[in-house]
C-alpha cells in the first residue's frame, strides 16, 4: 500500500501491537494519540488519556521507530460523546458512548486530522474485519467472537471503511499478547480497559457532576424516583431515575419477595416502572432510521440483531414504517430492550448496519 498510515495509539496493548505490526512492513507509519479527556493529575492505569498511557504510547512508538504525536480533541470529545452521554442518562435512556466515539471521533475527526497530516488511511486496534467485495467495503465481526467489537462500529460508512484498517480482526487476544511479549513491547502485561474511558467512579456520580457543571441543564432530580408496577401501584422510592436502566434488577431496594426488574424509565415524572422477568420480554423494537453500511436494502430483511454489546443475537425481520423509522420484530421475544442502545444487524459475520433503539414493541402489537 502506498502512502502513510496513521495508527491510533491509546497506549494500551491492542493499538500498540498494531503499531508494531505495521512498523515492521515497509510503509510509512505515524503514531497518533488522542487526548480526549483531560485527567489532570489523576493517575489511573488502563484508561486512555492519562499521562501514563500517553507516555506508554509515545514510548511504544519509539520502540517501533515511528514518529508519534498527541492530538488534543477534548472539546470535540466532550461535545460529541460526553455531553450526549449525560443527556442520554438524564433523558432516561442508556447511551452507548463508544459507538458515538467511533462515529464522530475516531473515524470522524481523527480520520480527518490524520488525512490533514498526510496519511492515506488510519489503523486502529479494533477487533473487527473490513472485507472488500467488489467496489464495496463490508464490515464483519472479528474472527473470534469473544473479543468482537463490530457492534460499536455499525455507524461507519463506505468512505470511513475504505480508509481504515483493523489489523487485529483475525487475531485472538492471546496471540496479540504473545506477540507483544515476544517483541518486548513495554505494554505487554497491561490489563484490559473494561469501563468507559472517561468515567472514573460511578456513572451516577459522573452524571450528577457533569450536569452540575452545565448550567443549561438546570436542576436535575435529586430525590428518589417513584417505583410503580405496570398497573400503577406505587411500590416505593428508589434512587433518582437516571440511576436505572431497562433490565436492571439490583439497586431497587424494594425488599419484594418476587424478583423485580426495571421495565421502563420515565425521566419527566422521575418514575421507574418495574415488573417480573417475563414482563421484560418484548416482541421487537422501534428504532431510528436504519444506517446501512453497504447498499440500502428495501422491503423486509431477515437478519440477526444484537440489542446490546454482549447480546448473543436473535433472528429477526426488519422493515421501515411510513415515518422512516426502523421496525425490528424478533423471532423469539427478548428481554432488556433499552432505549438509547443500538440494534445492530448481522447476516452471518457481516454487519449490515443498525439503528438506535427508541422503544420496545409490546407483545402482540
Amino acid at each position, binding site marked *: 500500500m502506498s502512502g502513510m498510515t496513521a495508527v491510533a495509539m491509546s497506549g494500551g496493548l491492542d493499538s500498540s501491537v498494531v503499531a508494531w505490526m505495521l512498523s515492521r512492513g515497509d510503509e510509512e507509519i*505515524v503514531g497518533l494519540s488522542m*487526548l480526549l479527556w483531560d485527567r489532570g493529575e489523576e493517575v489511573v492505569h488502563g484508561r486512555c488519556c492519562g499521562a501514563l498511557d500517553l507516555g506508554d504510547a509515545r514510548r511504544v512508538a519509539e520502540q517501533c521507530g515511528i*514518529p508519534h*504525536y*498527541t*492530538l*488534543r480533541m477534548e472539546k470535540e470529545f466532550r461535545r460529541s460523546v460526553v455531553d450526549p452521554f449525560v443527556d442520554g442518562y438524564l433523558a432516561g435512556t442508556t447511551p452507548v458512548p463508544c459507538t458515538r466515539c467511533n462515529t464522530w471521533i475516531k473515524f470522524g475527526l481523527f480520520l*480527518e*486530522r490524520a*488525512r*490533514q*497530516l*498526510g496519511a492515506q488511511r488510519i489503523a486502529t486496534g479494533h477487533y473487527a474485519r473490513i472485507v472488500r467485495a467488489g467496489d464495496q467495503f463490508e464490515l464483519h465481526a472479528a474472527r473470534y467472537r469473544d473479543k468482537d467489537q463490530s457492534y460499536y462500529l455499525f455507524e461507519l460508512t463506505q468512505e470511513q471503511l475504505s480508509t481504515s484498517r483493523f489489523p487485529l480482526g483475525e487475531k485472538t487476544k492471546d496471540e496479540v499478547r504473545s506477540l507483544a511479549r515476544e517483541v518486548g513491547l513495554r505494554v505487554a502485561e497491561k490489563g484490559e480497559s473494561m469501563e468507559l474511558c472517561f468515567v472514573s467512579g460511578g456513572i451516577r456520580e459522573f452524571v450528577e457532576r457533569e450536569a452540575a457543571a452545565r448550567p443549561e441543564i438546570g436542576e436535575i432530580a435529586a430525590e428518589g424516583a417513584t417505583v410503580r408496577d405496570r398497573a400503577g401501584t406505587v411500590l416505593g422510592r428508589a434512587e433518582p431515575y437516571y440511576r436505572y436502566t431497562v433490565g436492571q434488577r439490583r439497586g431497587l431496594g424494594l425488599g419484594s419477595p418476587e424478583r423485580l426488574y426495571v421495565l421502563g424509565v420515565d425521566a419527566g415524572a422521575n418514575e421507574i416502572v418495574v415488573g417480573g422477568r417475563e414482563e421484560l420480554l418484548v416482541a421487537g423494537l422501534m428504532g431510528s432510521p436504519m444506517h446501512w453500511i453497504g447498499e440500502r436494502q428495501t422491503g423486509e430483511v431477515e437478519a440477526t440483531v444484537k440489542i446490546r454489546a454482549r447480546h448473543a443475537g436473535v433472528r429477526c425481520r426488519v422493515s421501515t414504517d411510513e415515518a422512516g423509522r426502523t421496525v425490528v420484530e424478533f423471532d423469539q421475544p427478548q428481554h432488556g430492550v433499552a432505549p438509547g442502545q443500538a440494534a445492530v444487524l448481522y447476516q452471518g459475520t457481516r454487519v449490515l448496519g443498525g439503528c438506535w433503539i427508541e422503544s420496545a414493541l409490546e407483545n402482540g402489537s
Partner: protein
Amino acid sequence: MAAEPLEIVFTGSGTEANNAVIESCCSVSHLETSGHLVVSAFEHPSIEESAARFEARGGRVTRVAPGTDGVVDWRDFAAAMEDDTRLACLMLANNELGTVQPVSQAAVSCREQSVPLLCDATQAAGKIEVNVVDLGADFLVLAAHKFHGPLGAAALWVSGRRDLTPLLVGGGQERRRRAGTLNVAAIVGLGTTCELAAAELDDRARLLAGLRDRFEAGLRTIGGALVHCADAPRLPNTSHIAFRDLSAEVLLIRLDLEGFAVSTGSACAAGAAEVSPALTALGLEEDEIRGSLRVSFGITNSPDEVDDLLAALGRVVSSLRQGALVARR
C-alpha cells in the same frame, strides 16, 4: 550585564529564581498572606502560577494586559501599583511573542513608588543587551539554556538595594541566599555562554534578524499568513505567525515530519498545545490563536535552512488548503 559578582545568586533554573523572588517578597508559601502583586498578563508560568497561588492565599493580584502589539504600556503598569504592593513583575521579552517590554520605564516608576521590580530576562538574554544598571530593576533572572548554554544553571541578580530571603535553606552557599550544592559544571557553562554572547551579541542579532526577516518576507509568497506584533520591538530570533484558515497543530506535525521543529505555544509547551496565555492576553480571535505558530531561529541556522523551511511550509499549506477545498465540495 553590568552586575557585581556578589549580586549574583546561582540557581537550578529560571523557574526557581522567579519563585524565590516572589516567595521572598510575597510569602506565597504561607497558608495566609496579604497585600498586592502586579504582574503583566503574559508572564511565564513560574510567575503566573506563583501569582495565582498568592491570590488563592489571600493576596490581591493585578494583571496588566499588553496592547495588541504585544507590549505592555508602562504607564498602565505604573498605574497598577497600590499602597501595599509588595512586588511588580515585568518580563524583558515575552517568551512566546518575543516582544520586548518597557522594563526601564516601568522600573523608574516602581522606584518612585518604592515597589521592588522583578524582571524575568530569561527569553531576552543572549539575544538583546541585558544591562542591570540601565534596566533599573531590583531582581533579574536569566537561564543558560536559552542562549546555547547548558541545562540546569540560571542566575538571579539581586540588586544591592534588596535582600533575598532564601527559598532553600540548610547551607551557607551563595552568601546564605540559596542553600544546596552548586552545579559547578553548568554554572561554568553559564559563565562561558554569557561571555560568548556578550562578545558576539551584535553579530548574532544581525544574523538572527536576517534569518527572521528572510522568513517573514518569504511568507508573503505563501499567502494568508499574519505576523503577530511585527511592528513592535521584538527579539531578533522569534517570528510568531498565524494562518487563520489552518490548524497550527496540524502545521506543527506536518513540519515536524519534514524535519522542522516549530512550536504552537511557548517552547516549553511543545507537543501538547495549551491555549497560549500570550495570545489570549493579546485578545486574538480563537481561529487566529488556533492557527498560530512560533518559529525561532538559532545562531546555527543558515539562510538555506530558512528557504527549506519556507518550501516545506508552502507545500504543507497548499496541500491543506487543497484538502479543505475537496472536503467542502
